[in-house]
Every structure is written in structure tokens, then in C-alpha cells.
């Protein structure tokens, strides 16, 4: 069985799994995709002046998968053709490890870049995932956006960033 389009997993993320999932390999397999854009989010060594040691991610997993499917649906509404795969890592991650991986395939590069950017903005807005940051002399929960999938302003903001 191939890799799923949408996943939350404790295993390391592999971009090739996402590219395979959207069926856009450069193997002459009859795909209509002319472009794949990928995004890999990494654990950064510094946050708000703190020296980050590791991050611990947790998720409300069944809702997270539904949210990823929803984001893919929104992407299709905006750009009609892109196909999207989205995987998010859970558990304890060291600096430099990948926390989120996205692949977007489309006939042309403009849509694949835009779809990929839109997807990561929406993940940050509405995916039920939390990071607990451990730094050199303490730890804290990171709290970002109040998740509201029906907030049109947030969605428009993600669209504007995607098309900037």
C-alpha cells in the first residue's frame, strides 16, 4: 500500500512519500501534473530569543485528518486542479527535524506554488496540533491561532499570502 495523502505520524517525514501519494512521479505514468511544489517545515534552533532544544507535538488526530482533507478541498476551490498531500509529525522532535511536509501537484507551476503556500498557512490557522517548546532553561506551550474553519477573514488572509 502506498503512502496516504493525509497523515499525522510519529515516524520521520519523507517528501518522496507525499510525491508518490499525489501520483505525480516523473515516470511517465500518464499524470497531468506539470509541476510539484513541496514544503518542509523544520524545527528551528531559536524562537523569540530562546535557544530551542526540542519540540513536542501533539494532535487531536481524527480531527487533524479531516482538517487536512478540508484544506485540500479549499485548495481545489481556489485553483481547480492542484492535488495535495499533507503529513504532520507528532512526538518529540530535535532541532532540524521536519515537523510538516506538503506536496502540491498542478498542471503549471503558479498553481502548485500557490496551493502549497495556502496549505501551510491553513495548517497554522486550523489544524488541531500543538507544540510544546523545550528551551535551554524551561519549557512552554506555544499557542497561535484560535482555530475557526469558518472564519472567512483567516481564509482570505491565507489566499492573499499564497498569491503574494
Amino acid at each position: 500500500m502506498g503512502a496516504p495523502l493525509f497523515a499525522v505520524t510519529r515516524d520521520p517525514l519523507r517528501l518522496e512519500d507525499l510525491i508518490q501519494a499525489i501520483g505525480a512521479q516523473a515516470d511517465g505514468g500518464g499524470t497531468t501534473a506539470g509541476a510539484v511544489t513541496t514544503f518542509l517545515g523544520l524545527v528551528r534552533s531559536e524562537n523569540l530569543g530562546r535557544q530551542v532544544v526540542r519540540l513536542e507535538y501533539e494532535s487531536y488526530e481524527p480531527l487533524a485528518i479531516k482538517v487536512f482533507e478540508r484544506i485540500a478541498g479549499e485548495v481545489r476551490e481556489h485553483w481547480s486542479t492542484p492535488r495535495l498531500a499533507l503529513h504532520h509529525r507528532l512526538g518529540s522532535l530535535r532541532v532540524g527535524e521536519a515537523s510538516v511536509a506538503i506536496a502540491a501537484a498542478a498542471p503549471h507551476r503558479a498553481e502548485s506554488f500557490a496551493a502549497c503556500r495556502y496549505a501551510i498557512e491553513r495548517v497554522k490557522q486550523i489544524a488541531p496540533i500543538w507544540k510544546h517548546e523545550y528551551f535551554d532553561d524551561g519549557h512552554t506551550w506555544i499557542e497561535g491561532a484560535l482555530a475557526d474553519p469558518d472564519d472567512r477573514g483567516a481564509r482570505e488572509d491565507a489566499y492573499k499570502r499564497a498569491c503574494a
Partner: protein
Amino acid sequence: MRVTVRLFARLRDIVGVAQLSRELPEGATASLLWNMLAAEHAGLAAYRDAVSIAVNAEYSKMSRRLADGDEVAFLPPVSGG
């Protein structure tokens, strides 16, 4: 009726458990359930206007009427990515 409550991230730390069960009157809303928990755990008050809710793993609203057996999740502001 009885519902299951799921708590995540800092909300779980405040309450001390990831999951609990509550008996509610018929017709109770998610808001009533939140108020019950907030009355027991003072630290939740700060999240009154900064909590999202999901019922049976679908985003919902505080005004949602709950049913016996529902799984109600309270979600602090998210920080994926």
C-alpha cells in the same frame, strides 16, 4: 446523559487529565459543559474566549446541543507547522 471530554495541550495540563466523563442534563450545550469545567478549574477562565470546540471530531460551536455519548474536545489556540 453522559459525555466524554477530551482536553489538549495546556488545557490538559490545567485540568490534569487528557480525558474525563461528565453527566449532563438533557439539552445541555457545550457552553454549559465548559462552564462546569471552568468552575472546577480556575485556570480555564483565561481560555473563555480562546477555546475552540469539536464534537465527535468535527469542529462545532459552544451553542451546540450535546447528545448522550458525544465526545467533546476543547482545543486551545493551535500551533502546528
